[in-house]
């Protein structure tokens, strides 16, 4: 699974990656960090990730961002005034905590706020399974570049290893 995802990313020149860890995406972050085909920049805060990816996009490089839904909520100002205003295409993989597969008591508000906010901002956010990621990532970067805006892919559970 992870190997397929990395192969897809590399084949589509999505080699600049950054994120703030969520437990659901940790196996992917570890794999990106250990693979020399990729630059993975661990960011201290999620809005930095949007800056890093926007810097990549505005200098002609494809980028992938990984974060929890609450990280997006931390970063709405930077996202709207940078990524939307400057029309920077990249893919953002969101661990969409607090949905049907998540029984943690501390996550539902993240889910509700993320769903409400992405709808209110009219953002493109496509739910995906892990199995479908290798097929969806190329479509997402193509969609991002065609639309001139980031494309979000949301995951409703962690990777089962």
């Amino acid at each position, binding site marked *: 699974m992870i190997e397929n995802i990395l192969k897809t990313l590399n084949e589509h020149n999505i080699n600049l990656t950054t994120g703030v860890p969520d437990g659901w995406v940790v196996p992917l972050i570890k794999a990106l960090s250990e693979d020399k085909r990729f630059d993975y920049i661990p960011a*201290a805060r999620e809005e*930095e990730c949007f800056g890093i990816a926007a810097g990549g996009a*505005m200098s002609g490089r494809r980028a992938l961002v990984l974060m929890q839904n609450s990280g997006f909520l931390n970063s709405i100002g930077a996202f709207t005034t940078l990524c939307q205003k400057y*029309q920077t295409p990249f893919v953002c993989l969101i661990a969409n905590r607090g949905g049907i597969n998540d029984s943690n008591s501390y996550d539902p508000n993240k889910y509700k706020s993320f769903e409400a906010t992405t709808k209110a901002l009219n953002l493109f956010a496509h739910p995906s399974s892990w199995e479908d990621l290798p097929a969806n990532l190329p479509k997402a970067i193509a969609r991002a570049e065609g639309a001139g805006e980031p494309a979000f892919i949301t995951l409703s559970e962690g990777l089962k290893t």
Partner: protein
Amino acid sequence: MKQSAAFEILVEIAETHNALIIADIGSQSLWLKAAKDRPENLYLSGPMGMASSVALGVATAHKDRAVIAACGDGALGMNFSSLTTISNAAPANLSIVVMNNSVYEFTKSLPTPTRGVDWDNISSACPGFKSNIKLVEMKNLDLMSGPHFVHAEIEPGALPPGPGINAIDIHHRFKALFK
């Protein structure tokens, strides 16, 4: 030193090294453009404090090119965590310059909460920075052996003229350098 003079020095250094400059909102983007408008300048006119992070993305994407982030002290204070991220990632081709006038120049010059920060000792807390110097010392610096942290002490002053260029045009003019 006036901020206009600081940017004249910075542009001269950038031209010597064929360096890219990413400038924060606040007065930095405007003073940079006033000093010299170059396609290598990326003016950020919306997201306060993001210049350091955008510059990190550019520097990581183009490791053969010197990249300078020109940040206001108020702006960098809004994204202070980026210094830890940059220190950890330690891109050799990135220099962070803080233009420190200790006020929010665009906000009626209210004092910034960063005025107590010891900008000359950032590398003590963030050891990934290979040097921590004053702007005048940057002239002799190898911009490809960083990351560097540069402190420019500037005076508060009059606001510069507006940029006269929109965000999407800035993006595509900059991106065209890499085709």
